[in-house]
């Protein structure tokens, strides 16, 4: 599913956090977004996923204009995000966290819950099987029944990826998945991302760890002061002088 952004701007008062960004994310690709702090990367994610009120411009997913869709509507269309600081349903167990995110639960409707218990039970069984697969895939078996709030930072990152997977996404937006993560887990997460991409899931990744990111993605977009500065293959983009100046403060 292609994500297309046309002339996206987000203002906070007089400040333009995102200033006329247009870009297209082709289906099933691995794309990176880099830029100095405050470049507007996370704000862009927030607006695209409906987390912030819509600013200006058009967000379309596949054929549909989703600019005015609710956040959960966009998630149900197959586009989900994670957060810089991982978030979780702290008082639910890891297993419940994953189950809560599964789509198509007629058990959230009281009539079906009480009058069609068979249907609800079959769905629950299907969701449970999927959750067990996800738990195995992410190697979270040991903490499956632990309250998510008690997980380590790294485990929360894995859970976050798992919760996103449970929504059956076609496009995942990861906000700094490697921040505060040890090198071993970065490799593990990268492996998961590649494996999921093989299954056809597209990724857009905001990340400051340029070496890990450029090994992962095929396209890199650079943002600076709310604008798109450069786009292209990672090696090319990172070699550009203006990019190095914006991103590395001209030090190189």
């Amino acid at each position: 599913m292609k994500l297309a952004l046309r002339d996206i701007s987000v203002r906070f008062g007089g400040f333009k956090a995102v200033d006329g960004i247009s870009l297209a994310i082709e289906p099933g690709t691995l794309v990176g977004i880099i830029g100095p702090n405050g470049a507007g990367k996370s704000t862009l994610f927030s607006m695209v996923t409906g987390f912030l009120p819509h600013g200006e411009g058009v967000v379309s997913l596949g054929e549909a204009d989703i600019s005015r869709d609710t956040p959960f509507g966009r998630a149900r269309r197959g586009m989900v995000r994670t957060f810089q600081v991982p978030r979780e349903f702290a008082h639910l167990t890891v297993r419940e966290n994953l189950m809560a995110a599964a789509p198509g639960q007629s058990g959230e409707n009281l009539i079906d819950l009480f009058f069609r218990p068979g249907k609800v039970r079959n769905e629950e069984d299907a969701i449970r099987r999927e959750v067990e697969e996800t738990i195995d895939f992410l190697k979270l078996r040991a903490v499956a029944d632990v309250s998510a709030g008690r997980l380590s930072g790294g485990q929360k990152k894995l859970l976050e990826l798992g919760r996103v997977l449970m929504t059956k996404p076609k496009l995942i937006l990861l906000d700094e998945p490697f921040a505060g993560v040890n090198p071993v887990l970065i490799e593990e997460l990268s492996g998961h991302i590649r494996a999921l991409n093989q299954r056809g899931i597209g990724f857009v990744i905001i990340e400051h760890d340029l070496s890990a990111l450029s090994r992962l993605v095929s396209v890199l977009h650079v943002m600076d002061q709310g604008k798109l500065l450069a786009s292209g293959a990672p090696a090319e983009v990172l070699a550009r002088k203006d990019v190095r100046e914006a991103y590395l403060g001209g030090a190189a």
Partner: protein
Amino acid sequence: MAFWIELLISGLVAGLVIGLSALSITLVFGIARFPNAATGDTMTVGAYGALLGHRATNSLLVGGLTGAIAGAIVGFLGYWFIFRKLAQRSNVALLVASIGLAFVLRAILGVSFGHSQQVFQLPLVRPWRIGDVPVHPNDLVLAGACATILAIVFAILHLTPIGRRMRAVADDPALARVSGISPSSVMTVLWLLAGAVSASAGIVAGIKTVVSPEMGWDLLLPAFAAAIVGGIGSPVGAVVAGLLIGVVQEMATPFVGFTYKIALSFLLMLVVLLVRPRGLFGKLEGAR
């Protein structure tokens, strides 16, 4: 001794009323995130609903179901026409709106049923005596009904898909929305449940005492106290604190008198807030 056990029993029954209404408050606070002042008057709606149902059929069960359904409907209508539209506003706006709804409900009940006190016409039953202690069969029926309601609420919260999603929204509403959890189905079930639970509290209160348009409002403050003592947002805490407050109030009556027992729930609340600000079962709010 028998005297004290009798006080304990009546304290537990009073505590069930407080606990159920506190449960309704804490559910709404945990998920919709505002203190719902219309809880008391939803209790009154339940009591009148049950009164009508009981008069029409002479069955307490039918009466109770009528009252609970009336409460659920009021809960849902309040959400649909008021709270849903204010969902993006501050919780102060929601609180004020709920106070408004409370007055409207009370006025409608007053106009419809008059302000005179009404009672459930129940057959007189001789209390059983266990040792020296008189036990009223009606109290046991009410306690059984309350336990059933609590079991249903906790089963919905912990054993069903919608309950899981309600708890998810309680933990992090924004995360729930981006995880594809529809706020409207969670809120619909929340308000049906909260309405039915507060109505049940009102029905028990009505059966034990009298039914009047003001009854729910008078019961609102101890209910809030219990929700806070139990730890706001904690269903188990609300019920336990409700029972605790009910028992403390009744047991203290011989010492402080009937008029002042209500102050005790607030004394208890103050002590808990000072010693353990998050309440008995409160969860620590993560900084975000």
